[in-house]
């Protein structure tokens, strides 16, 4: 008897969950659909859902007219660059805190977390003036460094929680077998640490890609990434819905796909290990 009820219940829950899921996803779906419409159809009343003539024209126009590729490359360079630089600094730090913890390791971790609490607007003026005086305003280098610094606490924390899970006994066993420090790192630790490092990298690229305070305030033309490119559509040009949609779709698609793969890491990374 319990089985019969549960199938009916399951059907209800499925229907409700799908409905809510689609409502939440709808703005994204609508943007993607609109990007394939002509401008006239994009603002047609009544709006057409699927029964319109599909066109790729908007994508062509956006790429042609706005030098889209440069914005895209800026986003890639800033996101990947700040992540790589961050990992370079964070991996050794997280490593040493996880494997050679001292009396003050905990305090140090908490202090690193506290730097993340600093609201960006509290340091906006100095960073702006320093960049300007060094001629780094509107440069990718400045953004790479700034984004690396604001995400560094998250990277260190996330790596730390991953490294903590590597059992220390394995190291001792390797040492007993006569492994040198070098081969210990290369053959024992690295394979166990790679998944954690990869997840951290993924999450950090997502965060850097979508960062929209520093990217908007420190760039004008040359170093502007996709966040700034899309923001430029808030001018009257934004009324071209189909082109706005095409540009938006291109800006979010890569990160959306990466994000779907990193759901679990997201929880760990953004809660500093408090929820796993």
């Amino acid at each position, binding site marked *: 008897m319990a089985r019969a009820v549960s199938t009916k*219940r*399951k059907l209800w829950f*499925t229907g409700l*969950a*799908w409905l*809510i899921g689609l409502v*939440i*996803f709808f*703005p994204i779906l*609508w943007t993607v659909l609109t990007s394939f419409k002509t401008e006239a159809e994009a603002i047609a*009343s009544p709006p057409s859902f699927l029964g319109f003539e599909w066109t790729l024209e908007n994508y062509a126009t956006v790429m042609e007219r706005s030098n889209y590729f440069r914005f895209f490359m800026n986003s890639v360079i800033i996101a990947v660059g700040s992540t790589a630089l961050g990992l370079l600094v964070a991996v050794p*730090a997280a490593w*040493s805190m996880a494997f*050679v913890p001292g009396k003050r390791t*905990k305090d*140090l*971790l*908490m202090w690193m*977390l506290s730097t993340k*609490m600093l609201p*960006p*607007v*509290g*340091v*906006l*003026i*100095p960073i*702006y003036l320093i960049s300007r005086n060094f001629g780094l305003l509107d440069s990718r280098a400045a953004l790479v460094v700034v984004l690396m*610094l604001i995400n*560094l*606490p998250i990277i*260190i924390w996330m790596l730390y929680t991953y490294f903590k899970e590597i059992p220390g006994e394995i190291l001792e066993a390797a040492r007993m077998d006569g492994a040198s420090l070098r081969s210990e790192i290369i053959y024992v630790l690295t394979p166990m640490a790679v998944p954690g490092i990869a997840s951290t990298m993924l999450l950090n690229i997502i965060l850097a890609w*979508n960062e*929209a*305070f520093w990217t908007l*305030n420190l760039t004008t033309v040359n170093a502007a990434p*996709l*966040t700034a490119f*899309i*923001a430029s559509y*808030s001018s009257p040009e*934004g*009324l071209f819905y189909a082109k706005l*949609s095409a540009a*938006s779709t291109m*800006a*979010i698609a890569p*990160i*959306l796909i990466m*994000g*779907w793969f990193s759901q679990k890491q*997201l*929880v760990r990374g*953004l*809660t*500093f*290990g*408090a*929820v*796993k």
Partner: protein
Amino acid sequence: MATAHSRTAARFMLSPAVILLLGWMIVPLSMTLYFSFQRYNLLMPGQEAWVGFLNYKYFLTDPAFFAALWNTLMLVGGVLLITVVGGIALAVLLDQPMWGQGIVRILVIAPFFVMPTVSALVWKNMFMNPVNGLFAYIAKFLGMQPFDFLAHAPLMSIILIVAWQWLPFATLILLTAMQSLDSEQQEAAEMDGASVVSRFIYLTLPHLGRAITVVVLIQTIFLLSIFAEILVTTNGGPGYASTNITYLVYAQSLLQFDVGGGSAGGIIAVILANIVAIFLMRMVGKNLET
């Protein structure tokens, strides 16, 4: 176990991160603090002077500050209310047996990965626009007058947009916490005749307590600094109707070039954020011990 040698190595490995973060904290923050006591406007070079607390006095007595403080509280509070209540409901729903759970989960978390400028513009133009937006079309279809969201309810509209972005985060974290709930306990309670409601109140909610706290604290940190959504949709207007503290400081320093006044505002923003931060640090700190 650790030798003196490995301790030295550990310190060496740790120092770049510590030095960078220390620099990031101390250098700009002390500059902001210094500027906040100066008369310093980029449009009037050569007139810099020490003015004591004058910038703070101007900033704190400016009616715009109170509007911005109120808007900041409304924005943080409104988004928290929607995302926490909605997130709990969604987490409970998604935890039920169903077909295609993985796909629904993917649909629900998607907004989190949309960059702020995109979500703000999409909502502004394609949904909330009073002429061509989808909401206007629905209103007309139902025989109502289209509502100009961003002109007449700018703060509410921004709250809606930001809540849409953060609902996935709350849902995902609460769902993760839900899945560690002891199902045997649930079944035992069910057998003892506990109703759905009382099982939710006495078992589920207490179990989620910690995750809810984490969601509230982390979202607060990010929500205090909402910027792009305001810049793209309303520019803080009309008047100061949708200006928050972050946007006010931005406007003061980079639009009016008032470095002194902007810095005073920045320091006030830091103080406000610190009040929240203390609670968050305690939460995470407790977790480190276990």
